[in-house]
């Protein structure tokens, strides 16, 4: 049995430890804000926080998540008031919106560690998150906006 915490709630998983966290979140817990995009850790749509680190849940097995704290987009802020979410709305970042939860989770993890990122740090941190609609310039701007709004709060 594998015990994990998802958005602050203790969960017990009895199945195969090789199952990727992504499918547990989506199919079992119905937390569908974590998206399926590639299954190989290439697109970032499935990004969640594992003990505060941004990881790709499609290539994170449940056994490797055992005993750890997982935060999904649904747990980032219950009311959507995380500085990234606010900035994303302010700058109208989303087009289709499918990749944006993963983008926001990646950006939130960056800002938690680096409250005042440089443009190069943003590029580096966001390199694993694809957006086929092409919202990158706004994502970039929204991260700077969130950084400003958060006022360097760690």
């Amino acid at each position, binding site marked *: 049995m594998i015990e994990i915490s998802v958005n602050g709630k203790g969960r017990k998983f009895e199945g195969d430890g090789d199952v990727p966290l992504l499918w547990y979140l989506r*199919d*079992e817990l119905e937390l569908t804000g974590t998206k399926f*995009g590639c299954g190989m850790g290439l697109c970032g749509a499935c990004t969640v926080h594992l003990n505060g680190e941004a990881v790709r849940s499609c290539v994170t097995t449940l056994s490797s998540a055992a005993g750890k704290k997982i935060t999904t987009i649904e747990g980032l802020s219950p009311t959507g008031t995380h500085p990234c979410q606010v900035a994303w709305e302010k700058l*109208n970042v989303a*087009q289709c*919106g499918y990749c944006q939860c993963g983008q926001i989770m990646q950006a939130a993890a960056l800002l938690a560690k680096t409250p005042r990122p440089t443009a190069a740090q943003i590029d580096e941190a966001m*390199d694993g998150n694809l957006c086929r609609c092409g919202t990158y*310039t706004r994502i970039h701007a929204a991260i700077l906006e969130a950084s400003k709004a958060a006022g360097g709060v760690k």
Partner: protein
Amino acid sequence: MKCTFGTSFPAPENLPAGAAGGIQQSSTGGSFAGLAAAVYAKRDDLKVSIENVSVDRRGFLGTAFAAGAWVLGANILSGNADAAASWQPSVYLGFEPNGTVVITAHRSEMGTGSRTSLPLVVAEELDVDWTKVRVEQAIGDKRYGSQNTDGSCSVRDFVDAMHQAGATARFMLERAAAQKWNVPAGEVTLTNGVVLHAASKRRATLGELVSVAATLPVPKREELRFKPPSEYRYIGKQVAIVDQHKIVTGAAIFGQDMRRPGMLYASIERPPVYDSRLRSSDDSETLKVKGVRQTVQIPGFKQPHMFQQTGGVAVLADSTWAAMQGRKKLKLDWELNPEHVSYSSPAYKQEIFGSVHKPGKVVRNRGNFDGAFAGVSRKLEADYYAPMLAHAPMEPPAAVAEYKDGKVEVWAPVQDPQSVQQTVGAALGVKPEDVTCNVTLLGGGFGRKSKPDFVAEAALLSKATGKPVKVVFSREDDIRNDFYHAVAAMHMKGGIDAAGKLDSLLFRSAFPPIASTFQAGAEYGLDLETGMGLNEVLFDVPHMRSENGPAKNHVRIGWLRAVCHNFHAFALHSFMDELAQLNGTNYVDFFLKSLGPDRHVDLTKDGTKAWNNDKSVDEFPLDTGRLRHVLEECAARSGYAKYTNGKGRGIGIAAHRSFLSYIATAVEVHVDAKGGVTIPNVWTVADIGKVVMPDRVRAQFEGAAVFGTSLAMMGEITAEAGRIVQSNFHNYPVARMKESPRKIDVKIVDSKERHAGAGEPGVPVMAPAIAAAIFAATGKRVRELPIKRTKLV
């Protein structure tokens, strides 16, 4: 007419008898002529008419409105008298008894913003508080008119109907208040959701008036008063898309997120080669995988394949992961199609260049190209190539279906729910009306989700298992089972006269056509394909010929954002840049000189006509003045003429008319010592006529710059032994943040012209502008896409 791309491709019901769903063998060339006639049939000018519609609680509209709602249907009536009997409503506006305004979004939302922009127009004209309006997504129903979200046409084709729907409701609510208060109708006004009689200071909410308004006669269009644009509160202003908060909180539901109680998850192994059949299968190991319930064999398509399922073996399980694991254990023996198993991209490239090096089917002819070209002293010949592409929307296709008692309900991210009704209906042998198609949000579409093969699969599996079934495409399934953007070869010849102007032009292209999706074995492009950039060349060139060479399809061919404009614009504008160099000028000067005086180009003089997205040239002329203007303005904004090219830095530019819009884009590139390319700046000037939501239009052009960067720099699908080589983002990369333009400056031209199109026209200019910038930076001409295949230093 019905369409599956803008107003262009035939919907199944317009096909020759028996072709729908591929149930019978495809018909002969004779009926293809009939099909083509349907495709090309000129649409009469649309007129809008509105009438009261009843809400059937159990069917049409019943899911969107509460009981007792008053619903107005805005109907699109064809000018054709025969069609008058079958008016097709295109949008619905309703008021619930409590006064809640409900606007139905009948087009699919895949990121362009049409789910917001069209309802917004209704709210504007009705004059209610937009934040209190509820937007409901329509199910598929032909009474809405075309729901086919494709061809950059949502606003273009429906904005008038939305204005009229709003204005009609406002008129009737004002009349209802006047009647109730016994005052002259002209003294009552509806403003910001409240009806007022100023003289007596009486006021009423919409909820108080709905029951009376619903009994009034529907006014004629001539009686309506439309808001002057100076009074707009929403149109032309900054408005967020309706789903924005749900998107950033993870609450937005896409097709991949749908579920039904008791649902099974399906992962499907499909034929590795086009049009192949399963010989035998062994699922014994699959059934041992924990969570796997059963397997189901899905029959393949019959030609023409249209949007039918490809066939294969589905593994059904309690979870997506279990279904995927079980699928890996299948042992399948395929009878591979002998005609397609030899398909290999390098050989095919030679084949289509062979095609364009011979005379092709003439699609436009003016003057005497051969004579003129022989006579000029300054001339150039060049070949261009653009590879096959996959759409790769971030959300791989997915669909949920629930079959019960001869009817089926589906939930899917689809661009055209009516096409789902047709396709699923044919697959199951039920009437289209017995297919209820709920449209989820689309995690990108780009044309892929116009083709509902994946919904047919889910429906077939639900029928076979008696349970709700969700079909999940993996990324590999998506890349290898696409309706591909065609590979294309272009052969160009051009001559320059003594005055430094384009004198003669031969433009020949060959590509496996979209036509082959509707007519097995078709080798020439439909008019809409050659109409996208091949015959519609706007230069004032005295001698020109456009030709289309034959090319066979070995995969399913579809349409991808901007379609044939992508490769045609790449060749034409790259060639213009090369000719400008030969002429000793730059692209802008040579282009403007060759464009000639401002005028409306008439292609009928050259033995052809403008496809023009099925719109008449009276409504949407081929206006060289607008093209000139965007190029001049883009050159000025980008500093094109003064830019210091060379030493790894360069600027390129291209101007192109597509989807009735006029776009110019300049691109600045930096090429480092290792040949790595970055794009610090893109400048786009877009004349797309009038605009409803400027921020969404800007977003479309920002996105197009990135999409165009992927297409130009890195996108390439190839085949080997009939199989698609690429499978996921490691070998089919799309642009990441670092590889994308750093800054994208979008200027929307302030225009009073008709709304044209925003979703696609930003893409075709990107590849030629990038290629020209790379030449300016390095001196290397890139005539083949993707650019990454050319060593730049």
